[in-house]
């Protein structure tokens, strides 16, 4: 028995050692394809193999190796051709799709939310009783979040994002959990907002001058074009604070929410059954542990922001703004005292 065990063990190891990739995978991999192209027949062996008589004949009839670019093009063409063949798969889940083309708030359905797993809460023992109004029931020891409530709160949050975007507000999307990076960046890109996907530096709002003081800002006109002539007026200004913060994982961003509360910055947050819904201004009761769910919610809010921005820019095209624009005079004032800086041209002109 011992001998048999030994053989089994050793032979398995031997197989593992000698294992070679099957030929078909090697020919498909990009690396090996380039290897074969860059390989040149070794000079020494060629010279030995060929007699002087043969050499003269061989050199004239050598076939040039296919260029890597051509070979790659052919490969891509073939791949494209094969992708279009065969039956069409419908109703399949593409994880990239929610990032590439997130749904609009108007298209939100309960089926969509259910498919993304937003209804699953935490173990019943971990619940926060303040969430009882969002909870549909208990199944297999976990709370199930009521999806019609989720959809309603999600639509409200989307409306808030849209209105803030339409009024030229600064929207910050925060999702600091692993895997939320792409959806956060995408939502910020859509909503022309701002993103944070790594740790929130404590004090970025309450001690902004120290932490964000070196980060660049710009003065834009109503059409979001930068006005470089006001660049000099941006020195010694207090750091910018967001007008709305969207948090995908409020439980891990307690400090961010606290600072937002201190600075009267309204917040939107995904509230799971174990979170405190009073920490955010506009809760969205949903599962915050599924990336599929948070990606969906971030995408929807991003789309809402996109609509708001489009509205704002359309109004700006007509020469209107829905917010009170900052004036050139306000820019020249001392940001701390609110008066013209001493010795400046503005002060002289106002004194006259």
């Amino acid at each position, binding site marked *: 028995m011992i001998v048999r065990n030994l053989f089994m063990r050793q032979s398995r190891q031997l197989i593992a050692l000698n294992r070679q990739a099957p030929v078909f995978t090697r020919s498909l991999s990009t690396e090996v394809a380039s290897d074969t192209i860059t390989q040149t027949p070794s000079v020494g062996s060629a010279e030995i193999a060929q007699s002087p008589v043969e050499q003269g004949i061989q050199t004239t009839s050598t076939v040039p190796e296919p260029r890597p670019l051509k070979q790659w093009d052919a490969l891509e063409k073939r791949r494209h051709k094969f992708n279009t063949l065969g039956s069409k798969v419908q109703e399949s889940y593409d994880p990239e799709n929610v990032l590439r083309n997130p749904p609009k708030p108007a298209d939100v359905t309960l089926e969509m939310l259910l498919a993304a797993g937003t209804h699953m809460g935490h173990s019943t023992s971990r619940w926060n009783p303040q969430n009882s109004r969002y909870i549909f029931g208990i199944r297999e020891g976990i709370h199930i979040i009521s999806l019609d409530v989720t959809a309603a709160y999600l639509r409200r949050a989307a409306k808030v994002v849209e209105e803030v975007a339409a009024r030229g507000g600064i929207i910050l999307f925060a999702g600091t959990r692993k895997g939320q990076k792409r959806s956060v960046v995408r939502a910020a890109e859509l909503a022309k907002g701002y993103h944070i996907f790594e740790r929130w530096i404590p004090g970025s709002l309450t001690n902004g001058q120290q932490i964000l003081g070196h980060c660049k800002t*710009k003065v834009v006109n109503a059409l979001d074009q930068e006005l470089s002539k006001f660049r000099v007026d941006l020195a010694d200004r207090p750091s910018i604070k967001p007008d709305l913060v969207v948090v995908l994982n409020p439980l891990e961003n307690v400090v961010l929410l606290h600072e937002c509360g201190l600075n009267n910055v309204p917040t939107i947050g995904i509230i799971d059954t174990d979170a405190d819904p009073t920490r955010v201004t506009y809760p969205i009761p949903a599962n915050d542990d599924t990336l599929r769910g948070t990606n969906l919610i971030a995408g929807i809010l991003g789309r809402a922001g996109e609509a708001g921005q489009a509205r704002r820019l359309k109004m700006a095209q007509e020469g209107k703004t829905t917010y009170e624009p900052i004036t050139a005079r306000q820019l020249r004032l001392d940001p701390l005292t609110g008066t013209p800086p001493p010795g400046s041209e503005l002060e002289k002109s106002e004194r006259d």
Partner: protein
Amino acid sequence: MARPTTNGLAQALQALQIRSTLPARPVIRSLAQQRRTYAIEVEAAAQQSSTPTPSELPPTELAPAAPKIEFGNFLSRPARIVPASPSYFSGSPRFIDHVLELENLQAKYASLPTVAASEAPRMAWFKLAQFRDYVGEPVPMKKYKILVKILQRLNRIQPDMVPEEVKTTLKSFLRPGNPFAVEHISRTVDENGRARAKGKRKESTAVVQLVEGEGEVIVNGKSLVEVFQRVHDRESALWALRCTQRLDKYNAWVTVRGGGITGQAEAITLAIGRALMMHEPGLKPVLRKAGVISVDARRVERKKPGHVKARKMPTWVKR
């Protein structure tokens, strides 16, 4: 913290108006007052204070059409102060923007064929300190390593298929001056047939001038026997010539300084080995195997406080 009611924002705004001394941000104010201010109206009110407003006119008379929009003026007027980068709130926006840009490039050109890392062109990326200067932000080592990893992956794209976009991006991360462009000049035998080489061992430094001859060796103006009394030292000094059977084919003129007898002898070994390689480069494998061109970089370890020597501790005494 805003109150948890549905109109928490309005309450927050009230609190803002009561407590805050700073001017409220434009969005908040407009949300609170629910007022639409049209930029044209403000301008028109400022410019045409003399023209009668619709309320002043008699009700039967129609108001004249509003003046045309001055787009030139509208576009040059400031509206908002916004962060320059979408990563503003991360505290290191330039770095994060670079990483996102590189990640986008990597995803875009992921399907291009690559070469092995050893065949990719050598690139001297910024050192961490240089990169910190470049972006002007305190970037941690760990995060910079992630960025360099993406750079190296992009650099591995098949050299003749690299897109222009990738080329320019990669170039912006190279440190000024290409350290890999400097070619090493290999030294050769001079016009008089002399090969000059240096060798070091312990504290000693030896300079050897090796010419073809009949096996004469002069060390610091003296013969080898005078300098090295021990046979072992003499043998090790000339080991390069000995192991290649070239003892009677070369003359060596040696200057050796510093250190002790053994150090000097072995410094000469290294120097002669290197000089011999200039005359006959084909001997390199033999010399390598004989161990005469391998540098022995060991030096005397310094004495430490609390120790008797470099590592020796004083004897432990109970009291």
